[in-house]
C-alpha cells in the first residue's frame, strides 16, 4: 500500500512542479511534459530510484489509451470541421509521415555507416 502512496506522491509532485513552472513563466510548453522531464532528471541524477515509481507508473502506462478515449470522442463536436478539411488533413499528414520515415531512416543509416 505504501509503495502506491509513495509513487503517486512522486508523480503528482513532478506534475505540480511542471504546472508551477509553466504558470510562473507563462510558457506555451505543456506542463505535463515539463513534469515528465522533471521526473526524468530526478531519475538520471539518482534522487528518485526508478523502482519507487513503478507501483503507479506501470498501470498508468499500460492503460494510457483508455485515458484519452473520452477526449478523442470529443471529435464528435468537430465533425463539420473534419469534413470540410478532410482533403487537407489527409494530404498533409500522409506526406508528413512519408517524408519523416525517409529522412530519419536514410540519415541514421548514413550516420551509422560513416561511424563504422
Amino acid at each position, binding site marked *: 500500500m505504501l509503495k502506491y502512496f509513495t509513487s503517486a506522491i512522486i508523480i503528482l509532485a513532478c506534475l505540480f512542479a511542471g504546472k508551477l513552472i509553466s504558470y510562473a513563466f507563462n510558457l506555451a510548453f505543456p506542463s*505535463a511534459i515539463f513534469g515528465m522531464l522533471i521526473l526524468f532528471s530526478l531519475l538520471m541524477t539518482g534522487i528518485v530510484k526508478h523502482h519507487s515509481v513503478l507501483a503507479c507508473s506501470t498501470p498508468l502506462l499500460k492503460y494510457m489509451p483508455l485515458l484519452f*478515449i473520452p477526449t478523442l*470522442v470529443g*471529435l464528435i463536436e468537430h465533425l463539420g470541421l473534419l469534413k470540410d478539411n478532410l482533403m487537407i488533413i489527409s494530404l*498533409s499528414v500522409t506526406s508528413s509521415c512519408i517524408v*519523416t520515415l525517409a529522412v*530519419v531512416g536514410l540519415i541514421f543509416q548514413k550516420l551509422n555507416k560513416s561511424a563504422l
Partner: protein
Amino acid sequence: MIYFGIFITIVLFFIFKEIQSKTAWLILNPILLTMLLIMLILISSESSYENYAKSNLPLTLLLEPAIVALAIPLYKEFIYIKSQLKNIIISCTLGVFSSTGTALFIAYMLGADNQVTASVAPNAVTSPIAMTLADSLGGIAALAAAIVILIGVLGAIFAHPLLKLIGVSDKAAQGLAMGAACHALGTARAVELDSKIGAFASVSLIVSAVLTSIILPILYPLFMNVLNSF
C-alpha cells in the same frame, strides 16, 4: 446515469482489445473502434458529449500523471542507447523538423485555418502528447489524437515495406524511422518484426516525443509568421 458514460468507455475498450489480440489484425485498432462506437451511441441516443465527458472525468484527469510516467521508459531506454545517443538525437531532430514542417507547410498552402494547422503539426508523436501540444497551439486535441492514431494504423502496415523500397536496409535505421514517424502503433509493429527494430523504434518514439514538445512550441509561431508575411 452519471456512471454510464465511464462504464461504456471501459467495457468497450476491453472488448475491442480482446478482439484485436484474438485476430491480431492491426486495422482493428481498439482505440479507434471504441471511439467510433461511442460516437455512434451518443449520436443515435441523442445524448450530449458534455454529459459523457463529465462522466469520464476520472479517466481524463489521470492522463496528465500518465504523461509524467512516460519518464520511466525514457529513463530505461536512455541507458540502452547511450553509445549511439548523438546519431539518434541528430536523426530524430531532423525527423521532428520534417514531420512538423511538412504537415504545417502543406496544410497552410492548401488554405487550412489555424485550428487545423495546429492539429496536424504534432502528427508524428504519441497521442497524449499530440493532444496537449495541439491544445497549447490553439488546435483541437481530439482531432490531433484521431490523426495520430490513423497515421499509426497506416504506418504499422506500410512503413516497413516503404523503408525497404527506398533502400533503408539497416535494422536500427528502420526501427528509428518507424518510431519517429508512426509513434506507438509503428513501434508495436516494429517489435513484432524484429527485436532490434523494436528496440530502436521505442527509443525514437520517446526521443521524438520529447524533442517535438521542445521544438514545436517554438517553431510553430515562427513558421506561421514567416508564411503569413508572404
